[in-house]
């Protein structure tokens, strides 16, 4: 009964105007894997947040990104006795999703800088295309991403512009044609719209 009462009270305090939907285009560059660590803009980020206080937002997020890198023709020593000569087109696809929290550094009506963190899981698939073939490995891992950003509301709270920069780390482990990847880091920025 107590739980029911708390839930009912929470529902009574629910305010739809405190819900924000953010849809961002993102630029992302994987770091340190040397697999497809080239900046690309083939990704999106989605966030659904609720302002529990004027300073604090909590919510859920999901994003996806693809990075490609072309490697010219070279001879690879893939074992002590095996060699392979080919060029490669590498593709790294990442889909993190989970929960997030953000602290607004200002409660200004038109401009709110914030710091936040996202945490959850990430699906990763790394593919190497060569000649008429493709090799891929996929894995799940834990994901964490600190972020700084700015919410700009030109006309008040009706809609806004979202700008953010982030770093992320995921524990995914994948094997590719030439290397083992143990953990994936990324940096990037997002530009989007707030509803």
């Amino acid at each position, binding site marked *: 009964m107590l739980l029911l009462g708390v839930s009912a009270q929470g529902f009574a305090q629910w305010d739809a105007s405190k819900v924000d939907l953010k849809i961002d285009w993102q630029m992302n560059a994987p770091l340190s894997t040397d697999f497809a660590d080239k900046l690309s803009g083939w990704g999106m980020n989605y966030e659904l947040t609720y302002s529990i206080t004027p300073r604090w937002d909590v919510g859920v997020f999901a994003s996806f990104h*693809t990075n490609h890198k072309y490697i010219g023709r070279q001879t690879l020593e893939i074992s002590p006795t095996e060699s392979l000569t080919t060029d490669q087109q590498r593709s790294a696809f990442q889909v993190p999703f989970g929960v997030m929290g953000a602290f607004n550094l200002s409660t200004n009506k038109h401009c709110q800088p914030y710091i936040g963190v996202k945490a959850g899981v990430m699906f990763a698939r790394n593919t190497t295309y060569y*000649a008429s073939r493709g090799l891929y490995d996929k894995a799940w891992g834990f994901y964490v991403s600190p972020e700084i950003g700015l919410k700009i509301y030109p006309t008040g709270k009706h809609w806004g512009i979202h700008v953010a920069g982030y770093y992320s780390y995921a524990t995914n482990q994948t094997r590719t044609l030439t290397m083992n990847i143990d953990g994936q880091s990324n940096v990037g920025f997002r530009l989007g719209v707030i509803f």
Partner: protein
Amino acid sequence: MKKLLLLACVALVMSACEKDPDMGELDANLAVYTDYDTGADFGAYRTYFLPDSILEPGSHHAYYWKDENALAIIGKVEAQMNSRGYTRITDPEKKDEASVGVQLSYIAQTTHVVTGGYFGGWWNYGFWGPWSGWYYPYPVSYSYDTNTLVMEMVDLTASDASDNRLPVVWYANASGFDFGGQYNLRLLEDAVDQAFEQSPYIKAN
């Protein structure tokens, strides 16, 4: 304004998540793979027997490719073996005297694909406007050709082969798309050169 923004974003949400890489960036050369037996003494071999045809395995019968294109590929292998200090035995009656046998096989394959009304084709999403993609109201089919040249070196001096089979001491394959004609022949010849280049251990003392 807000509805327009939302519609534009919905179109982005509906678009495919994963971006395909530009496969046209890959060059046309065949991928060349080699492996060898670390127990083989390539320096001790002196002679080799190389047939004047290339085996083409089929589902029911094997065929022997013998025209001038086949001879051009065989000639490349012969030139590489000779440059490594080996001597070719050409008389089939004397092939038992050879240290190693070099056999070539060629496999050409056509892959047919029939799509279920959707084809993740060449045009980027968004090119024709803010649509989520496109579809065919009828099945669409396409095909592509690939080919593989296999080179194997068999040790004919392995007298201790207890199960009466000869060990393959060197294996190479070159595979990729089949472009046909003289261009494809040149790619196959280049692949033979590459297979030997990445196998420096094939050398007579």
